């Protein structure tokens, strides 16, 4: 027992360091080569330049890909958060038959391989004769984002004490007024967190976008199409760096909002509960 506990921390430490290296080394390489003056992605580094960022600025096709991605991302975020909020609310408030089964089905895309989801959607859409466009991409993204939205919003709605709504109603406020003055402010941090995370997921998503996109491509699909040209690699690195920074920023903001939500509602955890009477 004592010997194991003496050896284990060391191995765990080594494992943790190796894991972090494996996980983050590529991420560190991205900005490294984005600012490297050579067109060849290899060590040793040759010098500092911002040329690749300038190239990005001047590529028209990239701009439309960015616009497409923003459109898809924002629409996906709004739709999946809206639907997720409805589902989270239903899960928190109502009892309905086979609730667990239904919840399980809604959460399924979380564990399904995206390639399966992408191919399946493509087959269905083609069969139905739906033309591929950014909207079909949005459909696919909403499908895979809803589980995340539900997971985030569920905690916000579940910790919303029902007696708060009743108190508001009791004080003469209408259903809509109660929603506006009590429910919305209390779940707002969760909503923002969900918007940011689903937006980030959609922004980064490649496989479904690749299968379901028409002539307009999203950013990841555009990047993939540029990988054939070795000369463009450094500017892709630059683009990757920008997206990485943006994603990290968004996720940190989302987490900040999620925690704020928990803190706000944490107050109610301390409120006296009633096991008596």
């Amino acid at each position, binding site marked *: 027992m004592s010997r194991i506990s003496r050896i284990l921390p060391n191995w765990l430490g080594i494992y943790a360091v190796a894991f972090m290296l494996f996980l983050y080394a590529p991420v560190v390489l991205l900005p490294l080569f984005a600012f490297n003056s050579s067109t060849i992605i290899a060590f040793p580094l040759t010098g500092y330049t911002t040329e690749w960022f300038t190239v990005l600025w001047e590529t028209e096709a990239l701009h439309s890909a960015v616009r497409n991605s923003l459109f898809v991302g924002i629409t996906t975020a709004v739709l999946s958060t809206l639907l997720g909020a409805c589902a989270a609310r239903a899960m928190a408030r109502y009892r309905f038959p086979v609730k667990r089964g239904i919840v399980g089905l809604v959460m399924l895309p979380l564990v399904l391989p995206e390639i399966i989801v992408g191919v399946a959607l493509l087959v269905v859409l083609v069969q139905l004769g739906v033309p591929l466009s950014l909207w079909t991409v949005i459909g696919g993204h909403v499908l895979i984002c809803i589980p995340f939205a539900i997971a985030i919003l569920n905690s916000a709605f579940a910790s919303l004490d029902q007696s708060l709504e009743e108190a508001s109603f009791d004080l003469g406020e*209408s259903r809509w007024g109660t929603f506006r003055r009590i429910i919305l402010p209390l779940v707002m941090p969760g909503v923002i967190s969900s918007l940011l995370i689903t937006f980030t997921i959609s922004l980064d998503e490649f496989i479904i976008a690749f299968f379901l996109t028409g002539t307009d491509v999203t950013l990841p699909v555009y990047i993939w199409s540029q990988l054939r040209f070795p000369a463009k690699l450094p500017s892709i690195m630059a683009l990757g760096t920008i997206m990485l920074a943006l994603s990290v920023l968004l996720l940190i903001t989302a987490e900040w909002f999620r925690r704020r939500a928990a803190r706000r509602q944490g107050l109610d955890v301390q409120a006296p509960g009633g096991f008596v009477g």
Partner: protein
Amino acid sequence: MTMDTTTTPRSIIELKDVRKSYGKVTALHGIDATIREGEFFSLLGPSGCGKTTLLRLIAGFDEPTSGSIEIDGKPMAGISANRRPTNMVFQSYAIFPHLSVAENVGYGLVPKRMPKAEIAAEVDKALRMVDLSGYGDRGAHELSGGQRQRVALARALVMRPKVVLLDEPLSALDKKLREQMQVELRALQQSIGITFILVTHDQEEAMIMSDRIAVMFDGHIAQLDSPQALYRHPVSERVASFIGVMNFLPATAKAAGEGELALDIAALGAVTLPVAAVPEGISPAKVTKIGVRPEMLTVLFDDSDHAERVTEGVVVSTSYYGDMTYYSIVLDGAEKPVTISMRNTAGRAVAPVGARLRIGWGAESIVLFS
């Protein structure tokens, strides 16, 4: 019969055969009650007897399965909680966590489209009423349990409701604070004269605060009476043992003269009572049991002490409370001990276990049960 409006207070709530079922569970079986304007009314009963259910029906959060609720003469069927002249103090207080104390208290005035300055003035007044002046700018999370309770009360009072509903408002507070709040809440209710309906499972709390109490068991009202009447004349064994402590002794009814009932009580002996002493709903011949409160039995410590009737018993245990001592005494001819409470006095020691004592009692103090 003539109505004397000066002595009969107006009724504010009429409950007529109110029933409530949740699927197969019946929470309330036909509640009939009249709650009077300006009274402090308590719903008292053990956990699960349906108190909260009844309060929520009055508040309008749920509709009764059948029966009718009238508030201030108007039937409430189909009228939702936000349009009823009642306001609730929730068990959890339900203070809005993202709003300040003042915003919480003024919450219900906003939908009334009251001007801001007027809301501020009303909020100030309400906060003063609950002794929280100057707390308006505090956040909800900066309050202690007692203060949250006061905010919840102020938030209800500012609406000037006809009836304030309180669901176990003190159960989350510690004993000292709870006792203080019981007195304060009662005083506040008397000074503003609004009808309060309090739900509680604490009989002492109900006794201290209420004008009248409805004792509930299993979705029925077992007895609706003033605290004194409940204590002195409980209608059933169950009510008697829920309100305070009651000693029960088996008894047999013997035929007797006109207007009199002769009883043979185990360990106490034979007594003759006027038939008027038999509570309504019990036929004199069916009396099988009597009850006597611990303070109605007296230990006669000195040989010179005397009482209307005297019996003897042996002390089996004692509990010393400082001001009082509770003796557990097996009376001669009884199987189970009875509890007798005696006020402690300066010159007297607590009688030891095993001591043989003379016990005095009076026929007036016994309660009859079928």
